[in-house]
């Protein structure tokens, strides 16, 4: 079936980590599918399900029941917001021109193609991966103004790179979570299915970025969407070489021989992998000290409010997750209902046939008519349940989507926490530097004339102190910046959530009501057809 690709881009890795496993290795030829999502995807989904049911039973149905009128078969969404499913940019669409919003940026993902990995020294057979065509249409000035259109080819690895760069550049922001790398699940399904799923997920992700008020203007996204050929963003450095890198420098840092000169700007970044093992080590110690109530951090925080916020989000996540699960059960129950109703209808079709062929009595003919009416109503109800369910899934999917948003929110929160940690680390470093300087100065003053090496040491430490003070100031600024990002983003997310959920609830309720009314019609018709059997005084 499908093997997992274990090689990164350089192919010289000794420790290929999970991070690098994102491309798909295929033995079979790729599907020649186009992989485009058709306009009003919901309608096609619905039509598929209708044809699926009628194909096997068409012989029975066509001879007994009247064929469904297309007016019934084509789904009618009862809610106003039917802007789901994207149209293919190549096909003429009725939604081609932008809506009332002044700025728009729309992205299509299509045409998955298999390509061969060019540099590969370890596996002789050659490996491959998929690329996707990314089409962008926009009127944003950053992209060249109205009527701008771009197409590029990208692979999933590029998306990972984009996502990583954004996380670094926009700390504190609630950044949409990119699609999973996970290949494990894909082993259970066909390649075609996996590629299509990934294509859809990429489309969703990129368009989420495209509607984020800040991220849509980011240079990273623009480069990703516009620049053809190799993606001009720094790749994520793989763990292994990071480790090797850092290991070489480590002894010197630990012994403290070299001046621990910290580039001021580097202090603003979170400690990266092997490059700064010492820094990681220090920050780890610091956080342990914090947790165990050791040295109190010098930076004053509105900790409580933040902690409360975090708790609230956690609780919300739990309830949302629970509701999302129940929504799944509800969808399943509706589906089962529709299925059984359909099977019941089928059974009555068979009975109708039996009573019709070679009927010996008038009463049989009458019963045949009655059974046919029952079958018709049941089949209709079955179809309605299926349509209802397709709509319900779309609405309740929002719940699931917001679980992803919460992940992004938590990520923004942890940006803040790590910035605070940096500040705290630097603060305590300053404290320890100060005390070392004081000690040395005190000792030096006791010796007449001074100890030359000691004096040199004091000078060095004072230098370090200055640098560290600047670093701390920078870190504090960064921390404040991130806090502000957090705040405004949370506001935005809250607003959007409110809107989205209200829309979801209304849509859900409207659909339930609409389809229930349609079903009532079908059953009322049957009740009328069988009204001769009404028992008086029941």
């Amino acid at each position: 079936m499908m093997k997992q690709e274990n090689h990164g881009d350089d192919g010289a890795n000794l420790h290929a980590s999970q991070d690098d496993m994102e491309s798909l290795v295929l033995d079979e030829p790729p599907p020649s599918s186009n992989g485009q999502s058709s306009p009003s995807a919901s309608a096609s989904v619905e039509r598929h399900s209708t044809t699926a049911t009628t194909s096997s039973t068409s012989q029975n149905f066509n001879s007994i029941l009247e064929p469904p009128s297309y007016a019934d078969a084509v789904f009618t969404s009862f809610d106003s917001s039917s802007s789901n499913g994207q149209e293919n940019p190549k096909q003429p669409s009725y939604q081609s021109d932008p809506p009332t919003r002044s700025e728009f940026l729309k992205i299509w993902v299509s045409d998955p193609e298999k390509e061969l990995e060019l540099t590969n020294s370890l596996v002789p057979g050659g490996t491959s991966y998929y690329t996707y065509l990314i089409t962008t249409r926009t009127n944003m000035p950053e992209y060249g103004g109205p009527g701008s259109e771009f197409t590029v080819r990208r692979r999933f690895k590029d998306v990972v790179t984009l996502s990583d760069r954004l996380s670094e550049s926009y700390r504190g922001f609630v950044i949409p979570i990119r699609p999973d790398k996970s290949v494990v699940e894909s082993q259970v399904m066909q390649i075609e299915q996996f590629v299509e799923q990934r294509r859809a997920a990429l489309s969703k992700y990129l368009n989420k970025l495209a509607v984020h008020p800040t991220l849509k203007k980011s240079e990273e996204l623009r480069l990703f969407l516009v620049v053809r050929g190799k993606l001009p963003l720094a790749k994520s450095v793989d763990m292994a070489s990071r480790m090797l890198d850092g290991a070489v420098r480590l002894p010197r840092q630990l012994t403290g021989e070299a001046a621990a000169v910290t580039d001021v700007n580097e202090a603003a970044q979170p400690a990266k992998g092997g490059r700064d093992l010492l820094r990681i080590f220090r920050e780890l110690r610091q956080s342990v000290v914090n947790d165990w109530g050791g040295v109190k951090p010098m930076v004053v925080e509105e900790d409580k409010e933040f902690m409360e916020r975090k708790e609230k989000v956690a609780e919300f996540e739990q309830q949302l997750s629970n509701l999302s699960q129940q929504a799944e059960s509800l969808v399943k129950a509706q589906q089962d209902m529709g299925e059984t109703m359909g099977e019941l209808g089928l059974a009555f079709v068979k009975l109708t046939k039996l009573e019709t062929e070679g009927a010996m009595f008038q009463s049989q003919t009458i019963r045949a008519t009655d059974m046919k009416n029952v079958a018709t109503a049941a089949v209709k109800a079955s179809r309605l349940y299926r349509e209802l369910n397709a709509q319900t899934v779309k609405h309740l999917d929002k719940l699931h989507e917001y679980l992803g948003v919460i992940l992004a929110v938590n990520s923004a929160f942890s940006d803040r926490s790590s910035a605070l940690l940096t500040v705290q680390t630097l603060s305590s470093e300053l404290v320890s530097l100060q005390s070392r300087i004081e000690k040395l100065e005190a000792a030096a003053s006791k010796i007449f004339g001074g100890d030359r090496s000691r004096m040199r040491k004091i000078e060095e430490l004072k230098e370090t102190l200055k640098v560290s003070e600047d670093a701390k100031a920078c870190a504090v600024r960064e921390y404040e910046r991130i806090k502000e990002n957090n705040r405004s983003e949370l506001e935005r997310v809250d607003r959007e959530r409110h809107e989205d959920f209200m829309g979801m609830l209304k849509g859900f309720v409207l659909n339930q009501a609409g389809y229930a009314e349609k079903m009532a019609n079908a059953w009322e018709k049957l009740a009328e057809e069988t009204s001769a059997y009404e028992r008086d005084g029941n």
Partner: protein
Amino acid sequence: MLTTQRSVSGSSQSPRSPSSQPYLSVSVTDPVKLGNGVQAYISYRVITKTNFPEYQGPEKIVIRRYSDFVWLRDRLFEKYKGVFIPPLPEKSAVEKFRFSAEFIEMRRQALDVFVNRIASHHELQQSEDLRTFLQADEETMERLRFHETGIFKKKPADLMQIFKDVQSKVSDVVLGKEKPVEESNPEYEKLKHYIFELENHLAEAQKHAYRLVKRHRELGQSLSDFGKAAKLLGACEGNALGKAFTELGAKSEALSIRLQKEAHQLLMSFEEPLKDYFRAVQSIKATIAERANAFRQQCELAETIKLKEINLEKLMLTRSDRVGEAEHEYKELKAEGEEVSRRFETMVRLMNEEIVRFQEQKTIDMGIAFHEFAKGQARLANSIADAWRSLLPKLETCSSA
């Protein structure tokens, strides 16, 4: 075209006709659980109201249990060959242990219908065994019940075997195998095929009807869980949005109750009639098997008579002194043969009448069931629509808040 015939198998209604008209009305009521554990059983109160002269009085109340009904069914099956004996609800050893209220009620209803069908059947209502069943005291009934077990009572296994035989014979004929001792009656063959097909289709329909009941319950349950979860989320949210979730949750829970109710309705007025139809067809199959037996018996007897005739002629030719004896035997056999033929003809005639009545009755029974089904589903759908629609204005106020 179709007269709204009320099924005379109505239960505990008081007779419409004045006392001058003959009537026999029975009701099976008051189920009471007796005994413990494996020995537990249900006893019913059987109330008979009649002005039939053969009966002891205008009203009689006795206590009966399921096996008494079985005894009655078996006796009638023996005595009234050709008649479609009304079916009994299944023995069901499994559900017996649980004895849920629903099970008890369904059984009581089915037994009530059973007895009333007998009571309103032109032939069966005159049965002596019926009189015994409706009037005898409990000890007599118990004695009769035990007595029957050994000798006459057909065990379910035997009935199954008969069905299988009849079924295999039908298929043999279809496949063109051996020529069995079967009636060469094309109309009857058609009927048999029809009955077998009908049984299969009804089994399927009933199965899906039962599943539909389950689906209603499951949907009800999931709406209840969904509602609870929505309410919890609403409480967590707090603001106007939270209120919206809470309202949605409440509606969802309310609908859940509606669904459970409808599930019960569906079970009683749709699934049960289908099951009853299915049982009736099985009873017909038993009668078909009986007829096959009778026919075989008739043929075998005819064979024997023929042989005896040939033998007699031989004896007469040889002027044997056994002629007298043989002649006597021959005459006896011939009389028996005529009797058997008469009985067989009666059976055929009865079956033909029964078939007409069966078809008519089933059209009515099912028509009623379909109508109730339609009404129930329409009611449910309308209340679902109403409930959700009533929520919309509340959602509007929440969103504008």
